């Protein structure tokens, strides 16, 4: 467990460093091509540092907001609160904040940077479909992610990928509107600035799947098995999580509207976005979770 924590901190550091270097390189290229000197580099560095700090300190809030999770009080959801508090005691960590995502699909995730700043979110569908023992299994699993600092890597990845998507869109739009403006004016062709913006946008679009690959590497499947085993250590009752996973598998065709590729790896189960279909080809490409049947098998062996 302590090696897990250390390795997750290391991964997060490497990820953030990679993002900063990558953005700085883009800024440098733009600066050189528009012959504005070091301005581009400095601006890009500033953006990169702001992004990294933001993803570290506000990543959990960004993730929670992007999945439309809302915090619930102990009066609204006494059962859920009691379970979270009980398992937090068992794990010896402070009680995370409790959120509910208004979705019919059965799913859950944890986010935050350390056990002192952590949140757990479950979907409305999950709350309605699972009994107490099953819900304990799921929450135990999520708390294991909190204990191991998986949430730190997961949250930083989610916000960095989200920011990369936003930035690439920004560059593409800047080129698009800049191009039209150029056509209207006397200077047809848009000038070097527009071309650079186009190039950067395209590069980032190409890089998006690669970033997806990095997510897969950073959030390895082993960690799901590990959290499964560790969660069972907390509840001392593996069949609870097994039964929950069976229900989740049965309901995995229910689409989730509030999940996207940036947050997919955080969820307990790979979110489906297409009605009536388990997983589209694109989602298969971005597969971040081991198959549920395998997770069940390993729990049953315990």
């Amino acid at each position: 467990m302590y090696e897990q924590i250390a390795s997750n901190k290391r991964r997060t550091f490497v990820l953030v460093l990679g993002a900063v270097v990558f953005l700085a390189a883009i800024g440098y290229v733009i600066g050189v091509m528009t012959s504005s000197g070091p301005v581009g580099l400095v601006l890009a560095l500033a953006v990169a540092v702001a992004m990294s700090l933001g993803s570290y300190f506000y990543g959990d809030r960004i993730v929670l907001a992007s999945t439309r999770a809302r915090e619930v009080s102990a009066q609204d959801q006494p059962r859920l609160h009691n379970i979270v508090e009980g398992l937090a005691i068992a794990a010896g960590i402070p009680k995370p904040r409790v959120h509910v995502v208004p979705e019919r699909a059965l799913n859950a995730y944890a986010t935050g940077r350390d056990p002192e700043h952590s949140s757990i979110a479950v979907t409305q569908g999950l709350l309605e479909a699972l009994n107490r023992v099953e819900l304990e299994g799921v929450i135990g699993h999520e708390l294991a992610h909190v204990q191991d600092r998986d949430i730190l890597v997961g949250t930083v990845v989610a916000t960095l990928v989200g920011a990369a998507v936003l930035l690439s869109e920004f560059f593409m739009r800047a080129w698009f509107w800049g191009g039209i403006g150029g056509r209207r004016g006397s200077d047809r062709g848009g000038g070097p600035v527009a071309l650079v913006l186009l190039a950067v946008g395209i590069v980032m679009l190409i890089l998006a799947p690669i970033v997806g690959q990095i997510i897969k590497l950073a959030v390895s499947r082993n960690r799901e098995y590990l959290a499964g085993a560790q969660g069972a250590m907390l509840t001392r009752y593996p069949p609870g999580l097994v039964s929950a996973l069976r229900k989740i598998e049965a309901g995995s065709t229910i689409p989730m509207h509030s999940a996207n590729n940036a947050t997919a790896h955080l969820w307990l189960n790979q979110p489906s976005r297409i009605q009536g279909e388990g997983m589209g080809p694109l989602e298969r490409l971005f597969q971040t979770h081991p198959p549920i049947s395998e997770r069940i098998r390993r729990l049953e062996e315990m």
Partner: protein
Amino acid sequence: MWVWIFVGLVALLVLAAVLVFNRLVWLRNRVDNGWAQIDVQLRRRYDLIPNLVETVRGYAAHERELFEEVTRARTRAIDASSVPDQAQAEDQITHGLRQLFAVVEAYPELKANENFLALQEELTGTESKIAYARQFYNDQVMRLNTLIQSFPSVLVARAFGFAEREFFDIEDPARGPAQVDFSG
């Protein structure tokens, strides 16, 4: 030359002792914290029991013996001073509450009472929190005791008076095999 090797060895030993000492302190604090967690949940249960008894009494007044048993167990638990006494009294409460909830099954109006349902969720939640707090406490006690008993940490533990702690046992005498008496 030999002097320096000797000094180095002593420094190494002192360092090892310091590490073991810090580990012992850390574990002892975790045990204390674990006990505090149990205490918080037990108190919560003491607070809930009179409410529950009052609510149930309104519907099932003639289950008086059961109410008295639960109330007595509660008083005994509050007065308990040692860990084993406490554990035993708590088991009696748990036992009594289980009987109480079993009796409630016969009263549909009570089961539909919102106040009762909220109390039931609170008690079930507190019950499982006690179990989890107990689990955490016992795990930490086991780690502390193992460290105190193992060599060479036993030397540091003895020197600084670290004492082994008692487990909060889940043995429930009330639920042992039934004693059948044929003599009468």
